[in-house]
């Protein structure tokens, strides 16, 4: 099992990747650090775990999908 990581919109462009998988992490914050090589976190960073809004401190399990994105601007 592994953790699927996704980046969207401006963050996808800044990080330079849209999808990757990592081996293991215990929180969303740790996912960010591993997946981005410790890139600085934007102030307004949003996180979703398994398609639900979550926090950076939220726990992550093997098989989870963790997504990072900037403030939404639809509608």
């Amino acid at each position: 099992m592994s953790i699927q990581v996704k980046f969207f919109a401006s963050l996808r462009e800044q990080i330079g990747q849209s999808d990757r998988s990592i081996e293991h992490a215990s929180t969303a914050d740790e996912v960010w650090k591993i997946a981005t090589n410790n890139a600085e976190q934007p102030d307004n960073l949003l996180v979703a775990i398994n398609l639900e809004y979550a926090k950076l401190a939220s726990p992550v399990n093997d098989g989870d999908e963790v997504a990072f994105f900037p403030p939404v601007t639809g509608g």
Partner: protein
Amino acid sequence: MAIHISAHTFEPWQLISQHETQSNLGRQFGATATFIGSMRDFNDDAAVTEMVLEHYPEMTERYLKKLEAEATQKWPLIDCLIAHRVGHIKPADAIVVIACWSAHRRAALDACNWLIEELKFKAPFWKKEARPDGNVWVEHNTAG
């Protein structure tokens, strides 16, 4: 209740009218409130010639369904429709359609109002505008 996420142009009034016919809403509804958001050719005072709307497909669909379910719990709605464009969008294209049907006007109007605010501030969509000086990600929604 329906969610419609489309990569192609749609005609909002036709979409609402079709939904009403197909859902066979009968004669119990006395009030329909709708909101249509369409692409202006300006934003923050800059000219905008095109826009790309990115989304997070699985989460977006789930989130919009959750919004409809919540609205139906908060207000006595008979039916509800949310449609949203993604992909390449041209000025004057409809971007979002919200329609709420209820027996009475307050429920329809309040639910429609609540849905567009929730959608704008929480549903995972992102706009990138083509402006004369280049492509720019929209960083925040206008307050209203």
